[in-house]
C-alpha cells in the first residue's frame, strides 16, 4: 500500500547473503532482505543480536564480510540517525543541521532553517545544543539527517533514551516526515509497540538470521491502543522471549 506509492522518493534495498564477523565470531550469518522503495521497515531482536551491525552496514559505515547489497534506482546515499544525538557542542543548532548538507552548501542557512522548522525548532536556530532538552536534541539530529533529503534513512534506536511522552511525540514526528518525504526508512528498535506503530513491515533477527517477517497492514495513523496491535505485540514479545518458537503470521 503506502510503500508502493508511485511518488516514492526512496530507494529500494536488496540484501543477499549478507555476512559479518568480528574476529572470527559470526554476528550476521546470511541475511536476505528486500526493502521496497519508500517502505518503512522495523528491525527488532534481542540485545546483541546484530541489529546495529546490520544497520551500520546498510548505511555504509561498516563493510560486510560477505554477501551483497544493492540499491535500486540511484545512489544509496544514506543518513544514519544514532541512538545519541551526536551534535557538535561547539556549533549552533543551525550549523549542526547544516552539517547534514555536506560541503557544497548553497543556501545552507535557509535549508537548515527550513529543516528546523519541520521539526518544530525554528526558534532554536541560534542556541547551543547544550541548552536543549534531550528530546529537542534528538529532533535537531532528525533535522540534520533529513535536511539533504536522503533517499534512505537508517534509524538506530533514536528514541531509546527519551521519556515516554517525548517518545510519543517523536514517533509522530518521524511518521509525519516519512509520509511527507517518502524516503526508505529502516528503524532498529527494542520497542515492539513502536515498531508496530510505525512500520509497514517488521523483521526480527535471531542468531544472525531473519526469523520473522511480518507485514503490518493497519491503516495510518495507528492508535497505540488498537487491539490488533496489542495481539500482534503479545505474539512477537513471546517469540522474542523465546517462549513460543512457532511462526507468527501478520
Amino acid at each position: 500500500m503506502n510503500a508502493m506509492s508511485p511518488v516514492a522518493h526512496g530507494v529500494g534495498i536488496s540484501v543477499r547473503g549478507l555476512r559479518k564477523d568480528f574476529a572470527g565470531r559470526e554476528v550476521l550469518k546470511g541475511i536476505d532482505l528486500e526493502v521496497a522503495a519508500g517502505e518503512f521497515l522495523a528491525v527488532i531482536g534481542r540485545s546483541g543480536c546484530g541489529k546495529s551491525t546490520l544497520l551500520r552496514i546498510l548505511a555504509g559505515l561498516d563493510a560486510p564480510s560477505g554477501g551483497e547489497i544493492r540499491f535500486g534506482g540511484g545512489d544509496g546515499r544514506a543518513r544514519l540517525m544514532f541512538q545519541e544525538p551526536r551534535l557538535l557542542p561547539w556549533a549552533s543548532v543551525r550549523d549542526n543541521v547544516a552539517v547534514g548538507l555536506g560541503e557544497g552548501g548553497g543556501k545552507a542557512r535557509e535549508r537548515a532553517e527550513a529543516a528546523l522548522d519541520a521539526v518544530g525548532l525554528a526558534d532554536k536556530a541560534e542556541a547551543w545544543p547544550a541548552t536543549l532538552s534531550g528530546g529537542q536534541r534528538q529532533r535537531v539530529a532528525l533535522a540534520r539527517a533529513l535536511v539533504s533529503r536522503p533517499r534512505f534513512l537508517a534509524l538506530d534506536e533514536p528514541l531509546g533514551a527519551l521519556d515516554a511522552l517525548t517518545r510519543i511525540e517523536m514517533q509522530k514526528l518521524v511518521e509525519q516526515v516519512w509520509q511527507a518525504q517518502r524516503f526508505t526508512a529502516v528503524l532498529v528498535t527494542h520497542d515492539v509497540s513502536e515498531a508496530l506503530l510505525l512500520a509497514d513491515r517488521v523483521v526480527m533477527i535471531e542468531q544472525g538470521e531473519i526469523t520473522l517477517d511480518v507485514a503490518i497492514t493497519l491503516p495510518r495513523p495507528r492508535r497505540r491502543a488498537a487491539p490488533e496491535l496489542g495481539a500482534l505485540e503479545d505474539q512477537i514479545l513471546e517469540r522474542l522471549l523465546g517462549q513460543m518458537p512457532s511462526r507468527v503470521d501478520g
Partner: protein
Amino acid sequence: MSDLALVSPRAASYRTAPPPRRSPRVSLATARFVPWLLPLLLLCGWQIGSQSGVIADDIFPRPADVLASAARLTLSAELAHNIAVSFRRAVSGLALGGSLAFALGLSNGVSRLSERLTDTTLQMLRNIPNLSLIPLVILWFGIDEGAKLFLTAFGVFFPIYINTFHGVRNVDAQLIEMGRSYGMGRFTLFRRVVLPGALPSIFVGLRYGLGIMWLTLIVSETIAADAGIGHMAMQAREFMQTDVVVLAILIYAALGKTADSAVRLLERRTLGWHHAYGRAAR
C-alpha cells in the same frame, strides 16, 4: 475552594522558606570585590607591621617605599625598559615553544606514524627539568638572548604539547564517526570536529605553559642577563635596595596575572559553547 487548596501548601512552605536573597546588584558587586579582599588585607598588615617596627626595614621594605621606588624607576624610564625586555623574552619564548608544541601535538594526535616517530623522544626530553640545562645553555649561547629563548621555549613546550596531544586524542569518537557518516573529508573533520573538541584541553596546556614561562624567565634573568626585571632585582640586591627587589617580585606577579587573564578572556571568547554547557549542567 480550589483556590484555597492551591494556595495553602504554598503559604505553608513560604513560612519555612529561607529569607529572600539580596538583590542581584549587591551580590554582583560583592562577587567582584571578594577576590581582592585577601590581597588588600595583606597589604594593610604589611604597612602596619612596617610602621610599628615589627618588620625591619632592611629585611622587608615599607609599601610606601616600594611605591616610591616604582615612581622613581618609572620616571627614569628604566622600569619601562626592563619590563619591555622581559615581556619580549616571554612572548618570543612562548611563540617559539608554543607553536612547535602545538604543531607536534596536533600531528601526533592525528597521525599514528607521527606519534611513533616522535612521542617517545619527547617523553624522554620531558623528564629533563629545563632549569637543569642552564649550565649547558650558557656554554652554548653565552648569556645572550638565545639562552633565555631556549630555556623558556623548552619549558613552555611540554605542557602545551601534552595537552594538545591528549585533547586531540580524546575528542569524542562518536562525533568523529558522525562527521564521517555525513561525508566530511579529512580537513573538514579536523576543522569542524577535532580542533574545537581539543580546544579546552589546549587552553589548559597554554595556562600551564604560561606559569612555566614566567618561572623559567625569572630564574634565567637572575642568573645571567644585562636587562630585564630579573636583572633589575639582582642589581638592586647588590646595593641592598630591598624596595626594588620587592617591586620586581610584584611586577612578576602582575605580569603573570595579566597573561593568565588574557588567556581566560580568549577562552571565554572561543569556548562560549563550553560555558553554555557548564551553565546547562549546573
